[in-house]
């Protein structure tokens, strides 16, 4: 019988099993390192300074750093196999579809890390809270909401998935030192966008008003008149319909587009 060449659940299960066999040591060590680092550093800070974490918002920078840095570091290693001839042949020749291989990597990096990290950081929080209770007889004050107050905080999680997708795409291009190379590419890409924006603004507003250096690329531009003592500032936003398109793209399009690009890039791999 001809198998489904795109996706088959039993074959996907086999591939997941194979992926775990190949990588379980690395994942276990990574999990231990993430939990260890995200716990030991705040615990030491509490021991050296009893008031280090009295409120929730004092812990959140560590939480966000761990989420973004750990996640992107793991994802940038997604296709390390392709940097080695031996492992690359094993990866490409194993009878599973490329989609199954890609989804497996996505599950273990983007989704898997997200779930693991929250479980891990919850334990970290409980440990710090326990220490605070023991030392100060007071729990950590719950003054931070992760998805509201303001509501825009939820965009941090959209940014997580977009960055993950960008690093996954980077991993299909760079098989060695992928993290640094991807960071560099993102920086160059952002710089390129900034220059395009500057050129566009210069065309629209002219060069003499320095509009090109005031504003947020592709979103708003600030016009200053008057001076030298009194300045009048006018802010021009892009229209609401365009803002909505940006928002829609940020929420629902960017990450899937980058994942699709990564998938097709993976398809082109040769050894």
């Amino acid at each position: 019988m001809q198998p489904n060449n795109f996706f088959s659940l039993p074959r996907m299960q086999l591939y997941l099993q194979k992926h775990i066999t190949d990588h379980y040591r690395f994942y276990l060590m990574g999990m231990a390192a993430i939990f260890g680092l995200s716990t030991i550093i705040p615990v030491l800070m509490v021991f050296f300074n009893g008031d280090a974490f009295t409120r929730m918002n004092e812990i959140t920078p560590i939480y966000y750093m761990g989420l973004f840095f750990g996640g992107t570091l793991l994802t940038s290693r997604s296709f390390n196999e392709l940097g080695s001839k031996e492992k690359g042949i094993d990866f490409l020749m194993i009878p599973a579809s490329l989609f199954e291989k890609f989804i497996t990597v996505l599950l273990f990096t983007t989704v898997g890390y997200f779930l693991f990290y929250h479980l891990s950081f919850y334990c970290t929080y409980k440990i710090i809270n326990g220490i605070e209770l023991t030392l100060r007889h007071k729990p950590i004050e719950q003054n931070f909401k992760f998805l509201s107050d303001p509501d825009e905080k939820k965009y941090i999680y959209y940014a997580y998935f977009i960055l993950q997708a960008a690093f996954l795409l980077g991993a299909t291009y760079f098989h060695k030192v992928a993290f640094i190379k991807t960071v560099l590419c993102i920086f160059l890409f952002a710089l390129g966008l900034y220059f395009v924006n500057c050129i566009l603004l210069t065309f629209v507003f002219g060069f003499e008003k320095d509009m090109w250096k005031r504003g947020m690329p592709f979103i708003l531009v600030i016009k200053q008149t008057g001076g030298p003592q009194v300045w009048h500032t006018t802010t021009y936003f892009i229209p609401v319909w365009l803002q909505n398109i940006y928002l829609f793209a940020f929420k629902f399009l960017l990450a899937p587009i980058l994942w699709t690009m990564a998938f097709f890039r993976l398809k082109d791999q040769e050894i």
Partner: protein
Amino acid sequence: MINIQSLSFSYRKNKPLFDNLQLRLEAGHIYGLLGKNGAGKSTLLKQMAGLLYPDKGTCEVMGHAAAKRQPAFLREIFLVPEEFYLPRVSITRYVNTYAPFYPNFDQGAFFNYLKEFDIPRDHMLTEMSYGQKKKVLISFALATNTKVLIMDEPTNGLDIPSKSQFRKVIAAAVSEDKCIVISTHQVRDLDNLIDSIVIINDHKIIFREDVQTVTDKLSFKTVSRIEESTGVLFADSNLRGHTIITRNTGQEHSKIDMELLFNAILTNQQPIQEIFN
């Protein structure tokens, strides 16, 4: 079974490795792909396995475009590369993980091959030498019962007894529906094993004949004095005298000397090819 049509490929621009290459390999044969280092053997095998994409032309294996690397194709082909990866697990765990991908995998046969190669079945793959690992991979490759089996320099790293064990297990594994392609630059390792010869030189297929046709048309002899022989196409001197290739005019049967034939074709290609054309 393997059909390569007008294949062009280059690693770098303006430096073609293959240009308009044609090759057709059928089931039921063990092909020896012979060539010097850097002749393009491994690249050709990678094309067959779908690890490289043709710049022009097609490479079809069992009707599948190899470069698409579809599961239906991958489960019917196994490549034993010269340098390979095995995970850090026991042999049993390796089999349990990898074998289910191959619908015709024969676990009994796998352990028989291991026995043939004197490999203990309870060992960790990481604790093995390179040669032992290679034997595990060859055993696994044969046990998958894939229709196409490709081996790149399989005897590299094997000791002398293992080379004859290798020949024995491969000869036993061949069947009417299987196509085995073995590449090597150590042609003596394939003596008595292959039934068809493909010689690749300067990125071209310069010779492709089955062993039977070769021995029907050419005669391989050892003589003490070259001058006494007529129509010598190629000669090589050694301590026993001179090994020579002549045209087989008397329908006599001689054992093919693969190394001699290989050297003869590389150095004196035209007269030999004229005999076969």
